[in-house]
């Protein structure tokens, strides 16, 4: 009955159509092999080229001028006789790194390294001389600049440790809540936010990643480490390079998938790895790879409208895939094998973690009821939590595993995470934190040769304008400038 359903013409047509689209998409969308002419030069290599004098300031200026949308000549502010325009900031951003620092790293640097008692070590000698023209006291220059920037951006001098959040005074909490404005703080609001995030993550299944990707995001378990060795072993038999003496029985007659399916009942791995329900999966697997794809996708709870996207994501994850070797029906074989292995291993992971089967609808139902667990897991495996919360989350996952068995602890931890996110210590919500705006302006001002007294003469809006230019000059924009500069360089050399 089920076999017939998966062999229905509609399902097969849908799968066939999705696979035919993959043939067209794979050659241009393979992340492993981007076309050579589109590959951006890594920024560290581009900067190394500048340090080795392969690229000079003149070529950078030419490149900036050749990209009119950057408005390199626009003046941002005037300080006495000194004018700061966009190109000065662009040049700094091209040559030096102005990434924000996590607050914990900044605190560590302030405690362990003399970043506030000396000028930045990567300053060019001319800029250093310019800064030290009036005074020889580096320490007062650096600490003065830091103090001015803190004052301008309304930040406090004293740093607060992350773990202070575990023991908040009511006054402090009220002050921060006022700063947070309309941020949700009540437990129910947190749950509502988590529900929206869960829905957003769920929507990405079949467009951005597979169910394995969802598992990775929520448990840190990379299923590919289990599936890929087996897939490699099997797929190597279908590749052009056959170096094994013993061919897979009948694979040249019935195809790779059918031959593999016939070997599956003899594979003790399914038993030894204690994969749940493997007997049932074997019994229900259709003989045809296209029908198997339809069957497995249905069993995983993927809606038919998402099948093409899901198969696309899956194809991109195939190990060592070469588009000239994997086309048409062969691709169906590989995907059918991969999807079957996926389901077997996903079932095991989902059973161990949440006592549910690997099915999108089941997971949806589970996490709708356990949103605190979702919130904790999502933030933990994104790696965005501070150490004290990471430790608590890991301990809770080891101890409880699921929110079902210890709901209060999970809810408490979810609230702690929400509190961390809203607090001024977390840089992600606060644009003008020390690790972000203050630190970046601190470096930028030094590279622009601005002394504390000059910066003191600037309005807060002027500083924010400098920062906005720095933010707007993002990776793609910088890559474009480097590429143009290298083109100028090589046209000059060849000319």
């Amino acid at each position, binding site marked *: 009955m089920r076999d017939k359903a998966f062999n229905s013409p509609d399902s097969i047509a849908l799968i066939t159509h999705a696979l035919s689209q993959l043939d067209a998409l794979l050659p241009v969308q393979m992340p492993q092999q981007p076309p050579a002419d589109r590959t951006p030069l890594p920024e560290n290599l581009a900067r190394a080229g500048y340090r080795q004098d392969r690229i000079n300031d003149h070529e950078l200026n030419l490149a900036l001028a050749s990209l009119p949308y950057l408005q390199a000549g626009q003046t941002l502010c005037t300080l006495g006789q000194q004018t700061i325009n966009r190109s000065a900031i662009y040049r700094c951003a091209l040559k030096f790194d102005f990434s924000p620092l996590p607050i914990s790293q900044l605190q560590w640097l302030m405690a362990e390294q003399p970043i506030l008692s000396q000028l930045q070590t990567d300053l060019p000698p001319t800029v250093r001389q310019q800064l030290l023209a009036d005074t020889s006291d580096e320490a007062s220059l650096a600490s003065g600049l830091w103090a001015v920037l803190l004052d301008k951006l309304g930040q406090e001098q004293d740093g607060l440790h992350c773990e202070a*959040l*575990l*023991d*908040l*005074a*009511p006054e402090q*909490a*009220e002050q*921060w*809540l006022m700063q*947070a404005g309309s941020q949700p*703080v*009540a*437990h129910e609001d*947190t749950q509502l936010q988590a529900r929206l995030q869960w829905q957003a993550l769920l929507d990405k299944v079949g467009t951005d990643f597979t169910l394995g990707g969802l598992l990775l995001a929520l448990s840190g378990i*990379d299923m590919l*480490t289990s599936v890929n*060795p087996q897939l490699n*072993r*099997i797929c*190597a*038999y279908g*590749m052009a*390079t*056959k*170096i*094994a*003496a*013993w*061919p*897979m*029985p*009948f694979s040249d007659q019935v195809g790779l998938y059918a031959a593999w399916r*016939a*070997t599956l*009942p*003899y*594979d*003790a*791995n399914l038993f*030894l*790895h*204690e994969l749940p329900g493997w007997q049932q999966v074997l019994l229900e697997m259709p003989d045809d790879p296209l029908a198997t794809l339809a069957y497995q996708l249905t069993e995983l709870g993927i809606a038919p409208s998402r099948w093409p996207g899901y198969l696309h994501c899956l194809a991109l994850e195939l190990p060592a895939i070469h588009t000239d070797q994997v086309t048409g029906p062969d691709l169906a074989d590989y995907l059918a094998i991969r999807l079957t292995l996926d389901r077997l291993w996903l079932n095991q992971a989902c059973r161990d973690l949440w006592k549910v089967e690997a099915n999108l609808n089941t997971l949806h139902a589970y996490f709708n009821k356990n949103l605190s667990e979702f919130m904790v897991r999502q933030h933990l495996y994104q790696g965005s939590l501070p150490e004290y919360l990471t430790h608590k989350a890991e*301990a809770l996952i*080891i*101890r409880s595993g699921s929110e079902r*068995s*210890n709901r209060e602890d999970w809810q*408490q931890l979810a*609230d*702690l995470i*929400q*509190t961390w996110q*809203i607090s001024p210590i977390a840089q992600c919500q606060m644009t003008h934190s020390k690790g972000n705006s203050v630190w970046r302006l601190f470096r930028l001002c030094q590279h622009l040769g601005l002394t504390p007294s000059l910066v003191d003469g600037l309005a807060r809006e002027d500083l924010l304008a400098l920062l906005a230019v720095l933010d707007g000059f993002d990776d793609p924009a910088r890559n474009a400038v480097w590429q143009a500069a290298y083109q100028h360089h090589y046209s000059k050399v060849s000319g």
Partner: protein
Amino acid sequence: MDALVLLIPFLPLCAALIIGVAASSGLLDEKASAHLNADIAIGATGLSCLMALALSVGDWLGKTSGYFSVGQWLGSDTLDIRINFISSGFPVWLAAVFALLLWLVGWQASHDPQRGAGGQRFFFILCLFAAAIQTLVLSANMIGTLAGWQISGWCAYLLVGYAYGTPAATGNACRVFIAQQIGTIGLLIGISLCYIWLDNVNWARLALATEDLGIGQATGVSLCFTWAAFALSAQLPFTPWLARAMPTAMPASPVIMSHAGIYLLWQLHPVFEQSPFARAVLGIVGVLTALYCSIIGLTQTDYKNGLAYATAGQLGLMFLEAALGWWQIMAGHCCLHVLLRCLQCLRADDKAQRTAAPQIPAPPIPSVIAGIGNRYWAFTSSLQGFWLEPIIDWALVNPVRKMAQDLCYFDSQIIDRLMGSPEPAIRTLATFAQHDETFSETNYSGTPNGFALGNGLAGKLAQWAATLMHGFEDRFVTRGLGSGSIHWLRKMGYAANRFELVIIRPRYLVLFVGITFLVAF
């Protein structure tokens, strides 16, 4: 002449120290000193190779006495451990082959343009590995051999886990390391037995005193060292570690290491002569490994994996030769085989060679296998390596891992609570949600009962009915029993379930049985 033997491990050790100290102290910039590191490593391994070859020639001409002692390292009562080396015979020849191969590895690595930034680390490990493996082979006492084994094991761990950013590399490194450590247990017990029964840990003394050992004692000592040799030479059931170690920064290193197991057999050969049972074990395991590797090799689609199984299979044949008492053939086989396999590894690593080389056609399937070539069970067994690793995982690794989880749970839930943990000094608030509940007007108790919500007539009726039932439950059931009773009963239920789950696990039953036996006896 004998003193040359000291330089064979000492020169690479000095090179490792120079590279290591320079790297850790920041004296040399990694990129700027890439060539210097390579030159130091190649120079040290090259000189070590020259010393080994000179010593071999000296041995061939009969110019060596066979033994060189630097002095005593540790002495206590009858225990006398010296820093001493063997300067003649098979160990010297094997050391010369190893030294030549390690120099070739270093030379090839120095010409690899992609070695780049990781060069410092690579050449440090290469030199340390060279020093360790030469110590293992040339040491005249078992403690030196053990030290060489341990350091080379660590080097193998670092080399296999060279690309430590990938989970596969770290996983492989752990498995290789654990396999080596299991072998170390056998070696340690063997050394202890030698000391207990012979009051000595020198290889030469062991060879001379075999007649002092009874057949049982000889068998005990032999089996302990056999256990170590099985682990080191990737014999069953340790075979998979060699294939796991091949995707390393230096594929020749596991091949070299695996041949050191043959050296152990050679040192023990007078004892093996006393123990037919140990030789039978050697022969059976050797034959089984050779068969196992031959069958698995037929389904390998990766060149390096194929090399690994071919190496383990040939090592199995060497064990068979040992069992038959063909010690000289075994020694020659070992030297020639390690040379061949390492050159194949170097060729596999040479990217230019690999891309230029024509496709090697698959060898024909052996006639023995041809009869069952189309049997799915036979093919699957070969493809999956007879499930050796999954079986070990299932029988040993998984229970240990689960027990570790249980202990972790016990630690956090029982021990930590008993010991106590610091609480915040004031503990006013930990979350904004608490603040919201405590200080805001819209706290939980103030909100309307959100137990059920409905729209329309039917919905409102259902909502009222649900609210009524909830009120009834709240007033007459929950409050009647006490506000915390249901919560505690639920907790007790979970605890009981957990206890039941734990108690029915086989490992705890085995543990209880073990404890019972311990108490009884």
